[in-house]
Every structure is written in C-alpha cells, then in structure tokens.
C-alpha cells in the first residue's frame, strides 16, 4: 500500500505554510524532503504522522502505518537502553528488540542508563525505536542530527534494510544518505501564499 498525499495543505498555528502538495510513496522507496529551515518540512511530517489535522487535502495509507521520529527521542534517562526499547516495543505490540540493537550498534550499551549516553548514542537509540514499532512507513525529521559519519552510514544501512523488507521512508534531511531507492522532493515551490490563519480570518 502506498502512502499517498493529494493536494495537501498543512498549517502551523492556523497559518498554511505548504499547499498543493501531492506525492505517492511506494513500498521499498524513500522520499527525501528538501527545503530551507522554516519551509514547513516539520509541519508536513507532523501532519502526515497524524499529530495535527491537515489544513486541506487528503492523506491515504498513513495512520496506524506510521512510525514517527522527531528531534525529541522520547527517551527516559532513568531507564536503561534495553528498557527504553522494550517499552516502545510493548506499546506497539512487538517483542523482538535484538535486530534494533544490532542495526544501530547498541550492543554493549544495553544496561547503560539512557541518561549516561552521549548525544550520538542517544540519537541512535531514538532511531532504533523505529525498528521496534513494526510499522512500515518511517517518517523521520532530521534523523542524522548529532550523528558522526560512521553512525550516519549505519543509519543509512538500517533504512536500506527497512526498504528492502518492503518498508518505506519519508525523511527531511540535508545530508545525502546515498540511498539508491530515494527520490528528492523540494518543498520550496509549494510554499503557501501569504495569508492569515483561519482563526484570524473570522475577524477580517
């Protein structure tokens, strides 16, 4: 099943930032969103993840198929790496966390408290969470922040594995991950015309 977006408009604080956006993401493919800061990539990803309502347009094949990862990893510093992962696995009704630990090179850190990890290690743990959701569509907002080159390569490998297994990924990132399966989509042309927010509109 594809993730399909038709004539989508997304709004930040009631003000549309992107509009007229359409794309389709097939299983095994990745789509990399590009555009300057503040262009609405985060808002678009949050909307597709179902965290906020779309301003206009349709989203198909999202909902329960989305695994979302943003700047905050939702890690608990007082829980160990294993406990953090196992918690999310249980929430998403999965049981196996070993592949995730392997894929993101977290072996040897299993019993460390998440609070004692370095920024890069935390980030890897946050991304490992994606693998334990068992969901096919990864929606990732700047996933490579605070990762070193080796970790970026490892992350790209994990994404590639996910795609090979029939998953798909929608990413907002500035770094070239070297994914053959990826297409790029520049969101700049879809910048919404300047207008007031819906809540303000009632008063004009």
């Amino acid at each position, binding site marked *: 099943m594809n993730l399909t977006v038709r004539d989508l408009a997304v709004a930040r604080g009631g003000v549309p930032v992107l509009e007229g956006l359409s794309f389709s993401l097939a299983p095994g493919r990745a789509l990399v969103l590009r555009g300057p800061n503040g262009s609405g990539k985060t808002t678009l990803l949050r909307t597709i993840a179902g*965290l*906020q309502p779309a301003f206009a347009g349709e989203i198909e094949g999202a909902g329960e198929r989305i695994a979302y990862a943003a700047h905050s*990893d*939702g890690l*608990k510093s007082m829980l160990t790496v294993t406990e953090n992962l196992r918690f999310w696995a249980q929430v998403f009704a999965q049981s196996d966390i070993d592949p995730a630990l392997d894929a993101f090179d977290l072996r040897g850190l299993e019993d460390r408290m998440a609070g004692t990890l370095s920024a890069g290690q935390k980030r890897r743990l946050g991304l490992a969470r994606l693998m334990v959701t068992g969901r096919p569509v990864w929606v990732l907002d700047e996933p490579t922040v605070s990762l070193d080159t080796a970790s970026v390569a490892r992350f790209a490998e994990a994404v590639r594995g996910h795609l090979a297994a029939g998953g798909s990924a929608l990413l907002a990132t500035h770094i070239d991950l070297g994914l053959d399966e990826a297409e790029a989509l520049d969101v700049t042309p879809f910048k919404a015309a300047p207008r007031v927010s819906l809540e303000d509109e009632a008063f004009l």
Partner: protein
Amino acid sequence: MIALLLRDLRLAVRAGGGFGLGLAFFLIVTVLIPFGVGPETGLLSRIAPGVLWIGALLACLLSLDRIFALDWEDGSLDLLATAPLPMEGIVTIKALAHWITTGLPLVLAAPALGVLLSLPPSGYLWVLVSLALGTPALSVIGTFGAALTVGLKRGGLLLSILVLPLYVPTLIFGAEVARRGAEGLAVQTPLLMLAGISFGTLALLPFASAAVLRINLR
C-alpha cells in the same frame, strides 16, 4: 497500556521523588499541625480525620504537574499519541500511575500518622477506607488539570487554582466518612456519595482529559 504503567512506576522508583515527595509532605503536615493547634488530645482526636484528609489532598496536589510534564518535555507524549493506544487509555493509565505512586502510599501511611493525632480507635478503619476510595478520584481529577496545563511555562500555580474547586466534593464526602467513622456514627450516605464520585470521575473524566490533551498536542 500495562507497559506504560510499568514504565511510569519504574521511573517513579528510580527518580525517587515519586513515592517520597508526597509522603514526606503528608508527614510534615501532620507533624506540624499539633504544634500549630496545641497538644490537647481531645482537640487533636476531633480534628484528626479532617487533617489527614487535607494532608493527603495537598500531598496529592503537589505532584500533579509531574503527571504529563516529563513526557511532554522529552517528546514521549507526541510519540505516545502516534502509538496504537487510545488517548483515553493513556490518561487513565497516567492517573492510575499517579495514584499508585502518590495516593496509595498516602492511604497506607494515614493510620500511622493517625497515631500522632490521637485518632480514636474506631476511626482507623474509616480513614483507611475513605482515603482508599477517595484518592483515586483525586488522581483522576488532577490528571484532568494536568492535561489542561501541559506545556504551559508557569502551569504549576494555575493547575492548583483549577483543581482546587474540583476537589471540594471529594474532600467533603471523604472527610465526612472519616469523621463520622471516628465518632461512631453511620457512614453509609457519605460513603455512597464518595464511591459515586470516584467511579463517576473514573468513568467520565478521562474523556475530557483526552480531549484536552489532544487539543494541547495540536
């Protein structure tokens, strides 16, 4: 859902605070009361049920803003919202976790603190019963207040103002059960009302809390 409950309980144990803070506050209130009102046993035993209830309520109030604040800050709340859990379930579990970490210890500590306040022997059972029945309502109502103020910078004071009037019925009936029990009077009517409030809030308020949380995450 159970995973969420277990995680919250584990966090409460590891981070300290959870169990300790409310309990310590409860202890402080009950220890200080006799210094304030005088050591006369008759007076103390008369006000003991009410003091225990007030102490428990304030201790509960103290920890409310922690219900959602930490999960809000580290992004867990966003991630939970995309998880296959109903929001109503999340807020109910959050309230339950708050009750187990704050309410339950208060219930269990109350008889011990009753000794300090010369609670009449007939009162122990009813203080225990009324708190056991009433503190879940305090947690559920408090969760609603916490959901309203999640993400606000100075939410703590606002939370207290919002929750204070909502706590009045629970306090009245709960303290009334304890008082009547201590004086050897019939407790049936206030006990039924207290049970009604607890079950009523538990059944209905999570819907309001979930709606409020969805609005705040938007």
